[in-house]
Each structure stands twice: as C-alpha cells, then as structure tokens.
C-alpha cells in the first residue's frame, strides 16, 4: 500500500491534511523530474549507433551525469500539470504596467514554424536563404517607417540588449569625434527603467540623475541644468514609466544636441504611439523596440524577447554587424565589421529570427491603420480605467491624461493597514494577475496598470468593478481579504526572505538517513 505523498502538506484550518494526495480537484501537485524520473527511462527511441572506433581521445565521460528521464506520457503529464499552475494572458486580463501583456495571435506561431524559417541554419549559404533575408529587410523597413529613423539594427536579443546596442553606437560616435576623454556622463531621469543606468555603467559612463517635475515629466530646464561638455547622452523613456507623454521631448532633444550630446530613447512604451507619432520626429538618435511588447511576440514566461534598434543618420554608420544590403538582385548579409565604422558584433548570429517572423506577421495583419488603432485603443483603455477608478484610488501626479498605462500610488490606502502588496495579492484571489507594483520608484507604493488594446469593454468593466470592490473592502478594514491573500491560488504567499537567506537553486539528492 502506498503512503500519502510526502512532499505536499496542504492543511485545513484545523491542521489536518485536506486530501490524501495533496491535490485539490483540478489543482494537482507535481513533484520534480528528479523525484519521479529514472536514469534508465527515456521518452525518445533512438537507433543504435553504428559501430565505429571512437575519436574522442582520452576525453570520454566515465562517470554518470545523473539526469533522470521520463517516457512520453509521463512527460506530457508532468508539464501539463506544471502549466496549470501559471496565469496567462490567454486565461485572463494581465495588467502588468510597462510589460504589455496583449493578445498573442496564433497565426504568428504557425508561420514562425514554417520549415522555410524554423529549419534554416544561420550559416548556410546566403543564396539558400534569400527569403529569410527579405523578411528581415521588410521588418527593418517597417520599423524605420514607423519611427522615421534611417537605419535598423536587428540583432539585439532583447530590450536591454538593444539599449546596449544603441549606447554602444553613441559611444562609438563620440570616439570618432575624438571626445571619449571628455564626454563620459549619461543623464537619466529618476523614473527610468533600471536597465538604463545599468547599461550606461556597463559602458563606463557615470550616471547623472535628472529630477522630474511635480507633474511626473522631465522639464527641458532640468535637462539644461544637468547638461555640460561632459555629457555623452540622455536616456529618456517616452511615454515615460509613469505612463505620461514627455511634453517637452522635442525641446529636450534640441537642448541635448546643442550641447553636443546624443538622445537615446527607451522605446519600451512605443506601443502607445506606434502609427500615431514617430520618435524620429522628436529628434532622437537611437531607440530600441521591444518586439515582445509593441508587436506582440509571446513573452514565454520571461523570454525570448527581441530588441531591434533604430538609428538616426549620424549613428547609422556605427551600427553592429551583421546588417543587410542589396547587391544586384540579391540581398547580402554583411558579417564582417573590418574596414567600416561598425562598432562590431553583439551576438553570434543575426538576432531573434523566430521573433522577426511573428512581429512582421503582426504588422502585416494590422497594417499601418490597424497599428494606429491598436495604440489608440490601448491609450483609451488605460484612460478608461483611470477615469473609472479616480474617485477611489489616488494618482501621484494628480488626475491627468495618461498614455497606455495608468499609475496609482498608495496614498489612498494610508491608515487602512493594507499595503500595495496586499492589494495585489487580493487581486489574485479574484482571478486577476496583479498590476506592476512598486515600480516606478517615484510613486510611493506604485500600482502601474496597463490593460492593453486586447480587452473588451465587458472585460475592462469587470476588472474595474473588482478593483472598486477591493478598494472599498480595504477602506472598510476587511483585513482578511488582504493580509491572508492569496488564499485560492496554487500557493499562498511564498517566503522570499527564506529563499534569499538560504539559496537553494537546484535539486540535490537527499542523503539517506543511516
């Protein structure tokens, strides 16, 4: 007879196990592969190798690795059970501000799997991959048209990698002008994504923080005060991380250029303005575009992303390899930086081709008109949420028009004994993924809501009604709903302090008790 599975202990209020298995109906517990797999089990049948004399020298492995295997049915069950412990955009509204959780069309998944794209090797002869190069060039053309910029570097693997690419181009341009020794400061507003200062620091720049005005935006006057002959560039997000359009962006660009610096625009929030305004018209020099946000390539539980960078005329010569150029009737991938001003190579191959296919499919499906509509609907939805909650929640910079996301703070919770974190966890019990919390840092107890254009009005209305109900509970002191939350998720609150104090980052075989 089998004992109760030992690894799960869901207890009822009186401390007794709720079920024999630890499962609760469809909510099923699942051990690690290391606890259910066997070294001699496999889910792949492979023909025996041909008998040959080995050419491994003395480097053949002698000891076992310790990797467990599962047969195919066991594998399916393991991962299907794991998947059911995740929230997803397909299952519900996912209002993570600054992350853009919008619908991921399945046609894009299908197209990315065409063997003419998915089964191409990055180093096979270019004559056998002309369709792939054409696809990349078409994507680059769309990105340049949407931004009114003069070049596109496709290879960056994600947004932060794109930032690195843009700032490397800027650093190279400064070096070409012989100003490396003097221009070593990058201006960054307080509300910036953490990647901005991290990128600047990686490239040896020091960071000078630009304060925001009381309305949450950066004033050209504050930029002028921070500018000097030592400034290499400004890194500014527009719309910014508070969900606000940087009203003085054109003047800021002029001021930075007058002072001999470059303007790096963090394009994370391009999804608010694609098809409505072009960043090139703001006067920027470089901007990365998160294809996984604006152009809806799936987030995949944290990647892979893709972060192509568009560049102005004066930065274009410094773009990384590889890049595509026309050579007669054919397209050629230029992979050799020598003899050019290109700053070099960012990654082994040509970038996230699988994401290029999906992003371009998304663009073609929308068309120029559809992309503008997507931006507008996203801005409309965020403002609808703002207008529907402004009487119960507070905004750090007053009630004003926002872009694709709306920022609330926790002033309205003061005295209620409920924190932003509690409020977010209570949303989980209501079947919602929480909004982004505690970012940006400029708002106390920040709650950043980005509903996206993918939500119907009925969906937004229920979401709004739920938040209003929760807000009333919080103000009424219904503490249980918050401090105990989540109660109905696969897990209650997880002890992050324990995880950080005693890091356990891999499974280890338990020593047998003697």
């Amino acid at each position, binding site marked *: 007879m089998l004992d109760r599975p030992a690894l799960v202990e869901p207890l009822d209020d009186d401390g007794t196990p709720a079920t024999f298995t630890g499962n609760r109906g469809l909510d099923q517990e699942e051990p690690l592969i290391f606890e259910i797999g066997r070294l001699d089990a496999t889910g792949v049948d492979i023909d025996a190798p041909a008998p040959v004399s080995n050419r491994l020298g003395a*480097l053949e492995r002698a000891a076992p690795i310790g990797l467990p295997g599962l047969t195919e049915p066991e594998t399916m069950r393991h991962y299907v059970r794991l998947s059911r412990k995740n929230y997803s955009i397909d299952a519900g509204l996912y209002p993570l501000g600054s992350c853009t959780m919008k*619908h991921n069309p399945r046609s894009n998944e299908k*197209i990315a799997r065409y063997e003419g*794209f998915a089964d191409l090797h990055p180093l096979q002869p270019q004559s*056998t991959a002309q369709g792939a190069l054409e696809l990349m060039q078409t994507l680059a053309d769309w990105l340049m048209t949407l931004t009114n910029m003069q070049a596109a570097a496709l290879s960056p693997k994600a947004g932060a990698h794109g930032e690195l690419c843009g700032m490397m181009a800027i650093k190279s341009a400064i070096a070409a002008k012989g100003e490396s020794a003097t221009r070593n400061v990058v201006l960054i507003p307080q509300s910036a994504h953490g990647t901005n200062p991290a990128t600047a620091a990686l490239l040896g720049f020091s960071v000078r923080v630009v304060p925001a005005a009381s309305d949450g935006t950066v004033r050209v006057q504050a930029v002028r005060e921070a500018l000097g002959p030592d400034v290499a560039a400004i890194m500014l997000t527009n719309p910014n991380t508070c969900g606000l359009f940087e009203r003085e962006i054109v003047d800021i660009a002029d001021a930075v250029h007058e002072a001999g610096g470059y303007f790096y625009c963090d394009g994370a929030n391009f999804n608010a303005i694609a098809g409505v305004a072009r960043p090139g018209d703001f006067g920027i020099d470089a901007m990365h575009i998160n294809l996984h946000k604006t152009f809806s390539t799936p987030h*995949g539980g944290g990647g892979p992303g893709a972060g192509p960078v568009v560049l102005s005329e004066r930065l274009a010569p410094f773009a990384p390899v590889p890049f595509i150029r026309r050579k007669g009737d054919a397209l050629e991938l230029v992979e050799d930086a020598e003899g050019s001003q290109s700053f070099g190579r960012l990654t082994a*191959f040509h970038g996230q081709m699988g994401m290029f296919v999906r992003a371009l499919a998304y663009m073609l499906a929308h068309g120029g008109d559809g992309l503008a509509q997507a931006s507008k609907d996203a801005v*409309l939805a965020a403002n609808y949420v703002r207008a529907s909650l402004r009487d119960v929640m507070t905004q750090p910079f007053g009630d004003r028009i926002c872009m694709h996301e709306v920022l609330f703070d926790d002033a309205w919770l003061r005295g209620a004994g409920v924190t932003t974190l509690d409020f*977010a966890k209570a949303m989980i019990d209501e079947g919602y993924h929480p909004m982004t919390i505690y970012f940006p840092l400029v708002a106390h107890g920040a709650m950043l809501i980005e509903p996206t254009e993918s939500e119907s009005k009925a969906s937004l209305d229920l979401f709004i009604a739920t938040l209003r109900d929760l807000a009333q509970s919080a103000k009424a002191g219904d503490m249980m709903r918050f401090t105990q939350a989540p109660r109905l998720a696969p897990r209650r609150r997880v002890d992050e302090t324990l995880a950080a104090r005693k890091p356990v*980052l891999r499974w280890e075989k338990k020593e047998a008790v003697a």
Partner: protein
Amino acid sequence: MRYHPLSEADRRAMLATIGVPSIDALYADAPPATLLKTPLDLPKGRSELDVERFFSRLAERNLPASRAPFFVGAGAYKHHIPASVDHLIQRSEFLTSYTPYQPEISQGTLQYLFEFQTQVALLTGMEVANASMYDGSTATAEAVLMAHRLTRRRKVLLSGGLHPHYAEVVRTVSRLAEDEVETMAPDIRAAEDIIARIDDTLSCVVVQTPDIFGNLRDLTKIAEACHWNGALLVAVFTEAVSLGLVKSPGEMGADIVVGEGQSIGNGLNFGGPYVGLFATRHEFLRQTPGRLAGESVDADGRRSYVLTLSTREQHIRRDKATSNICTNSGLCALAFNIHLTLLGEEGLTRLARVNHANAVLLAELLAEVPRVEVLNETFFNEFTLRVEGDAAELIEKMAARGVLAGVPVSRLLPHADLDDLLIVASTEVNTNEDRDAFVAALKESL
C-alpha cells in the same frame, strides 16, 4: 480588425466616461507637430489567409535543413525534436505568461526553471546554474564580465579555438567597456600553448571544447595554470549534446561554464531565439548575472519556488547591477528542459553516441576522397576539412547540387587566410544516403 475587441460604440461610451470628445484628445500632451496628420505610407491590414500566403512565398525561397543532406554546424546544430516538446511549449500557460514575478500564480514557470537549473548544473558538472541567458555568445561575454568583477582584473585571454563570433562579441563588449582582450591565433589543430600565455594579470581564460574546428580539448592543465595565477577558467561549448559523451568542463576544473543550449529542444531558426547556458561555483553566486529560481515555502509550509537574489539585478541595483540583462530565454529553456527530460541520461548518451558515430563514418568516407584532408585528431560530431581551392566557392557549388555541406572558415574568419578550410557537422539526422550524397557532390564540385 480581428484582434481588437472594442466596437465604435464601446469607444464612444468609454470616451464619455473619461470626459474627452475623441481618442485624439488623449494625445494632447504630445507636441502637436509630432502627431501624424496623415496615415503612414504602410499597407492596410490583411486577412490571416493573406498574411500566411505572404510568408509561404518567402519561406519557399529558402532551402530548409530538412530538405537537403545537411552538414552545417559551427555553433548551431540540426537535431530531431520530439513533437511533444513543441506541443507543450505552446500551451497558453507557458507561451503567454510573463516573468514569474507573482510566485503564487507562476509555480509552473518557476518549477521548470528550477529543474532547468539543476539539469544544466548536472550536465556541465558545476554546482549552480542560472535560469538561462540570450544565447551562448552573450553568455560568454557575461562570463568574462563576471570574472572581471570576481578577480578585480580586467584582461581576458581568448583561445584560438573559440568560435570567432563569440570572440567578436567579447571583443566588442570589452572594447566599449574599456577592458583588455588578448586573442590567440586561429588554432586549427588544438596545438596552441595557451598555458604559456597565462599570468597573474589575467582575470580569465576562455577556452571552447569541442572547439570551433571540432577538436576536443582537455582543460585540466589550463584550469590548474589559471588557478595558480589567480585567474578563472571560462569553458565554452556550442554543442550541448556533446556533454552526453565527453567529460564535463566542471570535471576538468572550469570555474564558469557557458554554452549554447539550442541543440536540445530548440530549432535552428536562422540564428535565434536560442538559449544560453550559464553555470558556476556556489561561491560565485552573488556575482552571477541573470535570473535565478530558488526553493522556498509558502505560508502553509508547502514547497514553493520563487525568483531570488534579485538584488543583483538591474531593477534594484541600477548602475551597480551585475548585468544590464532583464530577461532570460524562458520558453527556449523550457524546450531544453522538456527535451532533456524526454531523453534522460539513457537517451542523451545514446543520442551523443549516434552523433559521434555518424561523424566518424563521414570522416572515414572523406578520408578516401582525393584532394581532401580531415584535419582532426579528435572530434565529437564536427570536424574540419582542408580542400583544394576555395571552400566558400565549394559549398556554393555543392548547394547548387542540393547538399548543404558545412561552413567555410572564411565566413567566420575572413582575414585569416584560411580559405581552404571547411567545418563539417554530422548529427543523428544524417543517413547513409546523405553521406553518399555529400561525397558525390564534393567530388563533382572540387
């Protein structure tokens, strides 16, 4: 538009609630001159059928690996991926979820990352691994930066057997971060005396095995020389399947092991997305870049997983972060995790043996071809051929005969005067017919 649920009536009602007359009024903060007055010069939206037709036509202009005898490697490899892998990674809960910042409703992602980390640590022979990086080349650059932080030195020595594109990535980042790089000459026969170049000014030495030319390298003595000089050994691999048959870098004394995980679970995809593997010693954890999933308990005491040690990361440390990276390659890590679970030790070992045997069979056939020389003493599933004439021209001629024969070294090292070298890979997908086709096309094209 099929992806936009709001109707015109919805929009009007929402605008009324907001109290503005039009959506355009919501863009009032933008300088008026920057708002487009006329639509962009872009095509109108298309139906799903029409979009798919467009891409089918583009796809038809490419020759996929499965449609030809295929021997191209040099950093990305054609392997068979079980159908269940692709099915599982397309489940909504994996495909359309975000980074697991809310652990209570992200245990699926967190548990597979924990499993992935354990698999990578086991495979590389190291104590800990992170939740993946963009790809092998960027993981290598991150390893070098980490070694700089740990040793407080800023000079790296790159082996002449390191993938030239990986070396370029390291040199690009180093030049712009103002760190020093020394690169050994291309080392076709794994004959370089790298140990003689190691001294106490180096933060780390980067060595790849199997190297770009296919040679297997014993890292043991290099590791000893590094440690004697207070430097770290960064070991690199681009073919993860090799670890099923050859000694792990950890066993040979490496301090940081990085590599490309594409071979397990992930398709070729014309270069990306791939999955970078990153493993190291427990003592270096605080300087490790990238995300980490850790074990903990929930309020009921049940075992749970959570992202941890995030104070290393950019969203908290900003300009003091260990890296500017804020993403991993989650779904590719999942594909790796599932495929390796399906294989298990038994399957991986067998897969590696078949790869090796197929490469040996091909090398033996090619040894018989006049005006061609197999240069390798040792190899796993990839080796270097010296051919008469220009290898780049040769592979174009062979491609015209329907055989994708490999990567000319001149494509990776255009200025090294190695135009007669060809890197050839053979995996489990190659059949006897493929090998015969290779030899026939080669003879006709030489």
